[in-house]
């Protein structure tokens, strides 16, 4: 089967003030339809750059990205939904107005039924008229997920969405995300620097090396679904976490030696 999303030889160099910043180097990756893939790496390894390039917000220096075989050369508002770090809600709009924002931009009528259903599912039904700053970080990020899902995109690109949350909210959000994914069958690319989160969510974990972001290793995660928080305490899971930590630190060389 052809991949949903294909990244071929992606490289990105930023022309920074203090010299060029090499963010991504010759990355190649296929994402299957309906797959939940996580991209794992330390801060500053080009994860966000990769995600922004996939969403058409960034141009690559070289290489290409394609969705269903068609080159991504700009934002695809109907096919791709992006979920940003720190929720990225507009502080001058209440939650409902934030969720309606993409409808306004696209100049189409607001799907109130869909929004209400998503608000109820994410436990935000009573907070639709609240301002973002009145909500906790986890609730803000839920609102931003509702904002993206209300558009019903085929692909969801998530950029460290839960990075600023505490461990408890993070677990809760991960379970919510898995439920939404299971129900919607969307293709999700999820960027994170948290190893256990990466494993817990994913079908496959793509590990990147720091500066420049280069493919270190791709892990298949064969934990059964539905996943539970208890699985993260099992020895197999912890072993995998340690293995990935080594891979990140050594830039994949250790794995190559073992293989």
């Amino acid at each position, binding site marked *: 089967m052809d991949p949903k999303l294909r990244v071929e030889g992606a490289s990105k160099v*930023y*022309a*920074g003030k203090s010299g060029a*910043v090499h*963010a991504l180097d010759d990355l190649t990756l296929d994402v299957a339809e309906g797959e939940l893939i996580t991209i794992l790496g330390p801060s500053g390894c080009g994860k*966000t*750059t990769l995600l*922004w390039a996939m*969403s*058409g*917000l*960034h*141009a*690559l220096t070289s290489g290409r990205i394609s969705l269903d075989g068609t080159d991504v*050369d*700009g*934002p695809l*508002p109907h096919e*791709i*939904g*992006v979920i*940003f*770090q*720190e929720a*990225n809600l*507009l*502080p*001058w709009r209440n939650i409902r107005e934030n969720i309606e*924002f*993409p409808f*306004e*931009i*696209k100049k189409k009528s607001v799907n109130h039924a869909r929004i209400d259903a998503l608000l109820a599912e994410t436990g935000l039904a009573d907070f639709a008229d609240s*301002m973002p*700053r009145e909500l906790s970080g986890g609730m803000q990020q839920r609102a931003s997920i509702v904002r993206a899902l209300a*558009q019903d995109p085929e692909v969801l690109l998530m950029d460290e969405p839960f990075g600023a949350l505490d461990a408890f909210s993070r677990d809760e959000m991960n379970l919510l995300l898995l439920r939404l994914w299971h129900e919607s069958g969307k293709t999700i690319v999820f960027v994170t620097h948290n190893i256990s989160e990466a494993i817990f969510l994913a079908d496959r974990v793509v590990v990147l090396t720091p500066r420049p972001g280069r493919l270190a290793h791709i892990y298949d995660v064969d934990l059964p679904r539905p996943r539970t928080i208890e699985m993260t305490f099992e020895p197999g899971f912890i072993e995998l976490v340690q293995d990935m930590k080594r891979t990140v630190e050594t830039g994949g060389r250790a794995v190559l030696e073992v293989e």
Partner: protein
Amino acid sequence: MSNVPSELRDDIPTFDNRPASTHDGPIDWSALTSVRTAKSAMEIGAIVGLAAAIFFGLEAVLRWTDTPTYVFPKPIDVVRVLWNEFMSVFLHHLWVTMYEFLSGYAIGAAVGLLLAALITQKPFAEKVIAPYILIMVTTPMIALVPFLRLEMGFGSWPLIIAVALASGPMVMLNSATGFRRTDLAKIALARSYGASTFQIFRKIRFPLALPMIIVGFMVGSIFGLLTAVGGEMVAPSEAGGLGERLVYYSSLARMDEFGAVIAIVAALGVGIYVLFYFIGKRWASWEA
């Protein structure tokens, strides 16, 4: 890669919680909109009580010391004059001043806001124009009024122009600070939904700039009122105005009337402040 939004093309993604350059304009006037205000009945009662104490205390001291009116007017006399002559005398002059102020301010604020929106799109233009704006902000525009009188006669235009020149640069300076705020993540958000450059301006850049624009409007209006009244004191139009009255009454030592005009000017200033306080509360409270 032709459709990639140009403003995102080569910036390393950043996710600041607070928008960059919140209050880094040449002058930070934001304190003007954040005075602590009374809320409880006790606080309001205390304020009214203090006002009454000053009012009647002054009256008592002036009576006790038998101070003549030409030295200092008694508050009760001022109120009496204000009451008796408001419709017959003061209303006309209030209208003249308001007309000059509002006309000039409308022109100045509109041009200032438009210029700020345009200029911040082009850093080069901004750098070239900045020194001139600074000169306009620091030059007291009252100084221009006598000159404009010679050029344009005794109508209201010299004062309208002076008010516009005083308030416009203030509006521009602050609005430019607002428009200069860039929040890459929010622009990226809008772009990811296919927003046009105009939509980005209307739905992201403008709301982001609004708190600073309101500050600019407020500061501009205070400078405008100052210039209108001051200009009338220096070189009034045939119609008069509150500033002209101040000079007239003080030259005749009619201090009761003088006091009444001062009270009207003060009320005007406070009215402007209160107006913008509520505008800020309604449209820019998200930033508080």
